[in-house]
């Protein structure tokens, strides 16, 4: 109601700007009320900062070997997270690893979203395409997730780019289903009928009216999927299908460290904690977003 008062004294332009922010601001405010989501958000922001400013944050070159200082424990001089069996600084590798997992996560989730949202929209809106698209999606669903990714990597070859592609393909069916479900429920609403009565084209209805109204589940899905994507990248790298040495990747670091479990447990524990924290953060934020974006709460406050 404050905005109304502003509008009366300052004229409409202020009102326009105020109102434009409103939806995002209310969502953010609600998200910030959720303490767990705030913790998650902080972890995500730290990871993003680490990824962007890696060269400045890292204390050493992440791939430079120094056998004289190998397997130093945590809190050693100059290496506060210790070093691995080749004497590479663990902290620097973790920092650069944040970059790898974030980039792979973002790329694979956005590719998966692009495909999944498009398929979901088409399947939900056009009844004729529905059967065909959803059967293809069912086919993709028939494979267990990580196996499907391994199959795709087996075809494309190992490497982080292929891991991103594999994870994105694996994200498509889930995303398509979620979007199709929302489209099916939105498409029968009266405002879509009203748009048809006005003579709006199908493309306009799909992208200007249906897509914005099913954005909430898509945002939640994307956040949750980031967690899965990062975890899968680590898993595939652990299996040797993703990042190849000496790339500092968390999953690969665990794989390298497991031979030294008894002598230098920090080599597996530290990247393990990093993966756990990030996955936890994205899941918690996704949960928080789901509550914050709840359309009923959003519209009736």
């Amino acid at each position, binding site marked *: 109601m404050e905005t109304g008062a502003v509008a009366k004294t300052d004229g*409409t332009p202020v009102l326009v700007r105020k109102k434009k922010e409103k939806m995002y601001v209310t969502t953010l405010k609600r998200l910030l009320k959720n303490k767990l989501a705030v913790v998650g958000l902080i972890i995500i922001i730290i990871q993003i900062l680490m990824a962007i400013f890696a060269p400045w944050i890292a204390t050493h070159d992440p791939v430079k070997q120094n056998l004289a200082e190998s397997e130093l424990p945590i809190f050693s001089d100059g290496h506060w997270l210790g070093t691995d069996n080749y004497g590479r600084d663990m902290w620097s590798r973790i920092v650069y690893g944040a970059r790898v997992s974030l980039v792979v996560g973002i790329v694979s989730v956005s590719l998966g979203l692009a495909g999944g949202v498009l398929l979901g929209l088409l399947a939900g809106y056009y009844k004729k395409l529905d059967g065909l698209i959803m059967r293809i999606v069912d086919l993709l669903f028939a494979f267990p997730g990580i196996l499907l990714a391994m199959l795709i990597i087996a075809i494309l070859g190992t490497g982080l780019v292929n891991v991103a592609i594999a994870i994105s393909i694996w994200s498509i069916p889930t995303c398509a289903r979620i979007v199709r479900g929302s489209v099916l429920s939105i498409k029968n609403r009266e405002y879509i009928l*009203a748009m048809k009565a006005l003579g709006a084209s199908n493309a306009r209805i799909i992208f*200007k009216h249906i897509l914005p*109204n099913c954005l909430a589940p898509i945002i939640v899905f994307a956040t949750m999927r980031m967690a899965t994507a990062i975890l899968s990248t680590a898993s595939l790298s652990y299996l040797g299908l993703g990042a190849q040495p000496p790339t500092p990747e968390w999953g690969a670091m665990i794989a390298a460290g497991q031979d030294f479990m008894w002598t230098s447990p920090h080599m597996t524990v530290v990247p393990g904690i990093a993966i756990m924290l990030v996955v936890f953060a994205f899941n918690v934020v996704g949960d928080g977003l789901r509550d914050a974006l709840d359309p009923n709460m959003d519209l009736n406050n």
Partner: protein
Amino acid sequence: MSQPQQPLLKLEGVKKYYPIKGGILQRVQGYVKAVENVSLEVFEGESIGIVGESGCGKSTLGRTILGLEKATDGKIFFKNQEISNLPEKKRKTFKKEMQMIFQDPYASLDPRQRIGAALEEVFVIHTKMTKAEREERVLQLLKEVGLKEEHYDRYPHEFSGGQRQRIGIARAIALNPSLVICDEAVSALDVSVQAQIIKLLKDIQEKHRLTYLFISHDLGVVRHFCNRVLVMYLGSTVELAPSHELYANPLHPYTKALLSAIPRPKPGVKKERIRLEGDLPNPANPPKGCPFHTRCPIATERCKQERPEWKEVAPNHYVACHEVQ
């Protein structure tokens, strides 16, 4: 009201059947006959009320006229041109001429779109106006339906029911249509708001020479609002007459029963309430003969066999009943 010779809208035997699919192969097993053989002429400037109980096909008829549903059979003429067989692309020009006001004003507005943007979109679709022109026109429209400029940037949920319906009306009249179909346009509103909206509709009609197809189940509102009234039962037309005539002298037993159900605010006056027995028959399996014979108090053997003809019994008074001469 003087009626010009050429009707604005003409329906000839319009039918709308919905297939019922079943079984493993989704084969068509039967049809729900939502609209059965409706013929009607609507003249420019008049308001025709379409009444009947829920499920009688009045909304479907409205949607079929607009082209939201494709007619199964029959012809629809608009300004002397057949529009029922036009391909979707050519229909766009006619969509400008025919608009609809929906029952639930909240559900018919995109919750994520500001009112200004929603109204401007109409012009984006149909005209090549610039942003400034559109904005000006929208502000003008808002004023015309009794809203304020500051409402331009609000979301639908920030309005009351009556205000939302005003937005619905603004959207419907934005392109200066000649025919507006009001599908239960005031049914969801409070009585006091109803009166305001009806007054607004009437004012707009006078100003733009609009023709209304007023679909409603509220006989009181229809009586007040419409020049002619069409009564429907189970997808079929039952009676059509000028409203004063219909309300004073209903001929069809169904119309009589409907009218006797209007509550009258005079406690002293005793009136005879005609009660209809039984439920509305299943439209997937309508009774043979007159669709109303299962509930009709004066049904005869003939009604069970023969479908009554649609005939003019008095000037401009049409009835479909064997018992009315």
